[in-house]
């Protein structure tokens, strides 16, 4: 065994896998995930074929359903793309949930205060920028803790999730509560402060922003020196250090970039779907975003496909719930099983590659 191979095995890093595995593993994973989902449906006393048919129809059965699925894809896509950049550098941001909330708060503050003062174009742009900035700064806290004090970002980003969510709940119940209102929520955003929809559909510009990020992240990772450094740090940080790369700055960038996209997802969702600041405005996107990035093989195009798949599962599970009373959380189980199968297939392929030759 050569030194390089040992180093790869040592870090558990999956090196270059043949394309067959890169594409094959997710397909096997999806099949296995749906199979285990079918077992759970059987256990619940329903017919898997009928349930999955309901799921397909719920996600793609008509214009309204397809729109619903695409709307759900946007936040997952943004989360997954941001995490793709971070995970490539082996920076484990699992605080997407908190960054999403802070993004929603920052953008929401603009929406609530300036909707009647600013032209709509400026208002929407400012909301999006504030959302991204809020998420990025919240993630920067974790970067600071890691760079200055060596605190593992996995733990700090996770703790910051709880703190952020509780902070929004406080704001929605206290300082930002709707004047004269009784519920713990802010006033409703003015019509001007909601994401403009494309004519004749419910698809809004937030979806376009998310789609636009696909080439942006692709270009970032493969056409810029910064992207090269991110990937270099991720593959072997010791080598990266020798090559004169400032790892600390990259950690800061990786966290702020992924946090920024999470914050963007937050303000887009809250200004199109919820139209108020309150608790419970995320559908666990911070965590499903991680799975989306992994299933998409940390490649922007793969992430887009994975986000669409996850969105379809989530939307489809709602029809399954309505028709067959199956818990909607089934979607979450299937998603996690799919990714576990992909990870297993990768590990097996990787082991074979480095043992067999």
């Amino acid at each position: 065994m050569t030194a390089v191979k040992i180093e790869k095995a040592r870090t558990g890093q999956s090196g270059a896998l043949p394309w067959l595995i890169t594409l094959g593993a997710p397909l096997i994973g999806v099949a296995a995930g749906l199979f285990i989902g079918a077992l759970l449906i059987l256990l619940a006393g329903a017919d898997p074929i009928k349930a999955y048919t309901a799921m397909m129809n719920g996600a793609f059965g008509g214009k309204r359903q397809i729109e619903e699925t695409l709307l759900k894809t946007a936040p997952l896509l943004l989360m997954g793309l941001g995490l793709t950049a971070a995970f490539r550098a082996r920076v484990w941001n699992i605080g997407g949930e908190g960054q999403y909330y802070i993004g929603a708060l920052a953008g929401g503050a603009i929406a609530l205060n300036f909707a009647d003062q600013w032209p709509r174009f400026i208002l929407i742009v400012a909301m999006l920028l504030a959302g991204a900035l809020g998420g990025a700064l919240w993630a920067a806290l974790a970067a600071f803790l890691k760079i200055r004090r060596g605190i593992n970002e996995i733990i700090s980003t996770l703790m910051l999730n709880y703190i952020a969510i509780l902070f929004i709940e406080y704001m929605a119940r206290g300082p930002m509560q709707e004047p004269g209102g009784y519920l713990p929520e802010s006033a409703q955003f003015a019509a001007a402060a909601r994401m403009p929809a494309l004519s004749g559909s419910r698809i809004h510009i937030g979806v376009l922003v998310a789609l636009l990020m696909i080439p942006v992240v692709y270009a970032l990772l493969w056409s810029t020196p910064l992207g090269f450094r991110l990937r270099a740090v991720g593959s072997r940080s010791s080598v990266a250090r020798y090559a004169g790369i400032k790892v600390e700055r990259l950690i800061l960038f990786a966290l702020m970039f992924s946090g920024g996209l999470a914050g963007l997802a937050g303000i887009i969702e809250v200004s199109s779907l919820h139209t108020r600041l309150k608790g419970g405005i995320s559908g666990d996107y911070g965590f499903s975003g991680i799975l989306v990035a992994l299933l998409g093989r940390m490649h922007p195009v793969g992430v887009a496909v994975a986000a669409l798949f996850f969105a379809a599962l989530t939307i489809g599970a709602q029809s399954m719930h309505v028709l067959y009373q199956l818990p909607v959380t089934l979607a979450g189980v299937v998603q996690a099983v799919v990714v576990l199968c992909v990870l297993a297939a990768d590990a097996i392929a990787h082991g074979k590659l480095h043992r067999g030759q």
Partner: protein
Amino acid sequence: MDWSLVLNWAFVIALFTAAIRLAVPVLLATLGEIVTERSGVMNLGLDGVMVVGGVSGFLVAYFLQGGPLAGISQWLGLLAGAAAGMLMGLIVAVFAVTLRADQVITGVTLVVFGHGVGNYIYRQQFSSLTARTNGLPVFEVPLLSRIPVIGDILFKHDATVYITVLLVLLVWFFLSRTTWGLNIRSVGENPGAGETSGLRVAAVRYGATLIGTALAGFGGAVLTVVQLRMFREGIMGGRGWIAVALVIFARWKPELALVGALLFGLADAVQYRIQALSQVGRGAGTIPYEFLLMLPYVLTILALLARSNRRGQVQAPEVLGRPYVKGEL
């Protein structure tokens, strides 16, 4: 804020009693993770393990408490929690040890998996959230519980509290004074040398992972079966992650885990007690309860800050999180 409400014996006793109780689930998970990590396996899926343990324990305790096994139903629930934890542990070990997959990625995925499975199982069994387990009675230690103040705080708990204290001693003894403990530590420090001297690295790591997840699953079940006596989504409140942090805080030592968990318990207890005060409407409502709820999470970051240094975690097991390949030194 009316300080006379806080600065009196009744409040102090209630506060510390609650702190000890609330420390238990997270302490069990921390102890478990210490055993696992000492063998070189990093199980970041701990929070998912606790949720699965919590839901399994709850269901067993709830469905048995009406039947012929009512007398021991709560205990069977706790055991079921530990067993379910070990099932999750088996998945962890297959990925980390046999497949040598990336332990960070699989750990995070297993958390999502555990939450999904836990919530699915619960929702599939119950349409409402009103189901309650009976829990365990308070056991007052004879004589000792009659010591003023101290007796109230330390010796009037349900049995899981005493069991947990024994487990701290047991894990400490196991890791530092037994051959099995030595084996676990040596595959976590230098698996190559361990293998040369005849240890089966994979077997030892499987064992350490299963012990760790049994304790975490048990901890999850203590929370749902004995303490809150219910299950709902998000009930674990990130306790598994806090346990992962406490392992670092405790520098992989069981005795320090006790200290860390008690700090967490105290933060949690302060939060509960002050909320209880403001609900009675006797002042003290000046602190928004959301900020009180943040306490354990803020404290976790502060605890790590207090124990951190620029060079990171020095006392971590040498090969933590790194898969072992035969022949590697």
